[in-house]
């Protein structure tokens, strides 16, 4: 099946990733650990842009950028350089942003996403380094605010801007691209995506080969999908009414779920890029081999290995490798119990319960899930009990064995006989049909089967009664 893309949708995304796992900011020694701190406490002359201060590149940030470039299958430039992007805004303390222009550190890459019609390639145009501005905070709501405060704690944090080719053909593919990007970045251990503002998205979208429109202010992946759905609908309606789409920048109003025009092409800034004289060009080519050695196994490779090594189906392998933590969790479980059973319990059941509660895999231990799986495969508890134990652990805490004892979940003899009766009926439809057709003797055959299954532990008369009762249902 080939996806037809009936509206000729083309989506390209610009994703800003804050490398908040670096210890210090991009051009100064200020700590990046400001999220729970008072405003303007993680600042110095450099990130405040005080007169006379000068930037010095964070070498670790360069390493992280190379790592990201390699993971996105980019080529790494021989020598990279920083430029100034000049514009005025109160959150920008120097009146320009130090960023990269014609020598981005990485470019010309690609990643594979789950597209509308199977695996789909999305090109990565470039990935470049830049500094984050400060943050404006309004006193009260934005329209009735008495004043605006500026918090420069974020100023100078390292951002990687990852720019894709316009290769996505639907909002769903855009979402999948973002998920995949997040997955890869998590694997690289360069950022904590759960921190506020860790990933910010701008989207470029066009329909029927028309001009592209940029949508800004998208703050979540779900928001990206919604903004794109709205914007595509808006463009289609506009064209249907005889309108023409012109290049412009629009703002996504998350609360109303609509996009609003911010500025047209004529009003675009002239950023007057020029090379940053305070930073010398940086040779990076020699660092690549060393960084390459530190690259972990990435999601695609891990998925392939899971299929091969554990005999998992594509869907299980994919689900278990999207998040690095889940993959690591699974591998530990799979080293102790049957990998396929482990896949079912981790991917289908445990992850479902966690998602329902908005929890991550950290909320459960490998030990507990192994204990539960062993109880089930050892025929000590039913699958339903296994699920109940997971829910109890998540909602109230406790260890699986204690819960089994407390709730009396161990299968008793009755259960064993009942199970055997059920199985005997299910496995011998002919005998059942004969009995229901009036052949009383067939019942003896079924009783024999129950006795066989329970290894003679069942009482034959009891088995007979149970069979009759069950067959009457």
């Amino acid at each position, binding site marked *: 099946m080939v996806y037809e893309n009936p509206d000729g949708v083309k989506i390209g995304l610009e994703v800003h990733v804050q490398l908040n796992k670096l210890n210090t900011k991009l051009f100064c020694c200020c700590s990046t650990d400001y999220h729970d701190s008072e405003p303007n406490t993680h600042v110095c*002359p450099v990130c*405040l*842009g*005080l*007169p*006379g*201060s*000068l*930037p*010095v*590149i964070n070498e670790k940030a360069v390493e992280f950028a190379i790592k990201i470039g390699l993971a996105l299958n980019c080529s790494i430039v021989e020598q990279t350089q920083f430029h*100034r992007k*000049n514009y*005025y805004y*109160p959150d920008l*303390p*120097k*009146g*320009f942003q130090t960023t990269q222009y014609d020598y981005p550190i990485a470019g010309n890459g690609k990643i594979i996403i789950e597209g509308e019609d199977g695996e789909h390639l999305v090109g990565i145009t470039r990935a470049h380094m830049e500094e984050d501005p400060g943050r404006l905070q309004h006193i009260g709501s934005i329209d009735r605010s008495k004043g*605006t405060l*500026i918090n420069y704690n974020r100023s100078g944090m390292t951002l990687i801007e990852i720019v894709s080719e316009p290769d996505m053909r639907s909002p769903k593919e855009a979402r999948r691209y973002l998920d995949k990007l997040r997955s890869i970045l998590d694997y690289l251990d360069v950022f904590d995506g759960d921190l506020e503002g860790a990933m910010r998205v701008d989207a470029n979208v066009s329909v029927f080969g028309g001009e592209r429109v940029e949508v800004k202010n998208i703050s979540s992946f779900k928001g990206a999908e919604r903004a794109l759905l709205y914007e595509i609908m808006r463009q289609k309606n506009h064209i249907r009414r005889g309108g023409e789409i012109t290049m412009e920048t629009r703002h996504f109003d998350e609360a109303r779920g609509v996009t609003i025009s911010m500025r047209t092409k004529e009003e675009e800034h*002239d950023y*007057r*890029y*020029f090379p940053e*004289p*305070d*930073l*010398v060009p940086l040779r990076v080519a020699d660092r690549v081999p060393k960084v390459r050695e530190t690259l972990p196994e990435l999601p695609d490779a891990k998925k392939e290995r899971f299929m091969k090594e554990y005999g998992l189906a594509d869907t299980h392998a994919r689900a278990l490798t999207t998040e690095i933590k889940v993959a690591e969790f699974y591998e530990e479980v799979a080293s102790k119990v049957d990998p396929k059973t482990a896949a079912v319990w981790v991917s289908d059941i445990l992850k479902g319960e966690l998602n329902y509660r908005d929890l991550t895999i950290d909320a459960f231990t490998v030990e507990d899930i192994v204990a539960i799986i062993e109880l089930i495969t050892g025929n000590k508890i039913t699958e339903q009990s296994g699920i109940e134990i997971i829910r109890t652990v998540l909602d109230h805490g406790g260890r699986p064995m204690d819960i089994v004892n407390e709730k009396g979940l161990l299968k008793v003899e009755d259960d064993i006989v009942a199970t055997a009766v059920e199985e005997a009926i299910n496995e011998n439809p002919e005998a059942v049909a004969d009995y229901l057709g009036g052949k009383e003797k067939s019942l003896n055959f079924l009783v024999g089967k129950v006795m066989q299954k329970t290894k003679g532990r069942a009482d034959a008369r009891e088995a007979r009664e149970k069979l009759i009762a069950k067959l009457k249902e």
Partner: protein
Amino acid sequence: MTAWTDISGIRHKIADSSAEEVTASYIEKIGKSRINGFTRVSEEALNTAREIDANGHNGPLAGVPIAIKENISTKGLSTTCSSKILEGYVPPYDAHVIEKLKEAGAVILGKTNMDEFAMGTSTESSYYGPTFNPWDIERVPGGSSGGSAAVVASDEAPISLGSDTGGSVRCPAAFCGVVGLKPTYGCISRYGLISYANSLEQIGPLATNVADIAALMDVVAGYDNRDSTSINRENNYSDALEDDVKGMKIGVPEEYFGEGIDTRVEKATWDAISNFEDMGATYEKISLPYTKYALASYYIIAMSEASSNLARFDGTRYGFRANGDNWHDMASKTRAEGFGDEVKRRILLGTYALSAGYHDKYYLKALKVRTLVKKDFNKALENVDVLMGPTMPTPAFRIGEKIEDPLSLYLSDINTVPINLAGVPSISVPCGFADGMPVGLQIIGKHFDENTIIRAAYSFEQNTDHHTRRPPEVE
């Protein structure tokens, strides 16, 4: 005629009396000054001197007072670039050079006047009013480090620091009859120097004699990991203080004697070169053919960088703030009221030169010319040890004479800006007088070869007496 007070003289005075007394005598002199060289005297100066008296100090500049240009950040001491827009700005940190001076025991006497944001050749564009030349108070002291040169010439400070983007140390040194050095780009950390055109500028010392320049370089030069353009290279500048230029090859660029040069300046320069011949050096005339494009290239690059460097002055965080209806209104009014005319002119021209559609025609072309100017110097300095010529084509002009004519003011930088484009070191030493005003000889060297030009300048000083003449104001 009393001799100049040099660093060793100061140290003797301190030994005989105290650092406090020495500092106090300078502060007293500054109080009576007629040249408006200082913008402010540090309230900490006397305390620092007293501490040195009380606790002793082993530093090479222990107790020696020094004047600092208004664009070098001093913790706790207002640093305004002589601009209204930085009115009241007190840096919370010291520039690298200030840290070094404090370590060496120097006493920061105060801050010196300059052209607003170092954009000028006369120190007339300062928010604090012009500085006057101590040789003739109707004339300019040169610029932009006019205050730093004038206070040394009038003995209100024995030594000072300036900054040189296109001649801003050498020009006032020449006009005021003192010694000024523009080191190789990367030699002194710019950390804390408020940028005008960062790819061109260097902090530079001013003094009454070459030995003090070397002593000051020994303190402030050297690697600083906070300036990415700083070069890690050890050097002892005082080692170069040798009276020996035998066999030294001098190149004299014909372009530095071009149209508009004052004949008296020309004569003083050639006399100086003859002195060098007498001392055993040889000279040859050479050509730096791209000099004629250097001025245009320099101004485009400097203004482009300035347009971006000065963007941060928007009234939001520090300095002067005008009232406005909203942030954009406030920021533009702050800039309209806070910057002087010359600064605005350069920001506008620089913004224009970087704009889409003009970027390649101006900025990019200027960078290409810069490369050619650099090649000029590299080639010339393959065959000779140093280059010599007049620092300024004329002696100091009268106050008000050129300030309304920016182009003629820009043209007076013709001999100094190519050096900044090339990044090579250059020193200006007094070499005579024209119309009663000092003339400066410029000695240019190879990258990081400060020691050769210091040796040449020192030898010249040992064999001539131009530097012993003092301005009438000091007598």
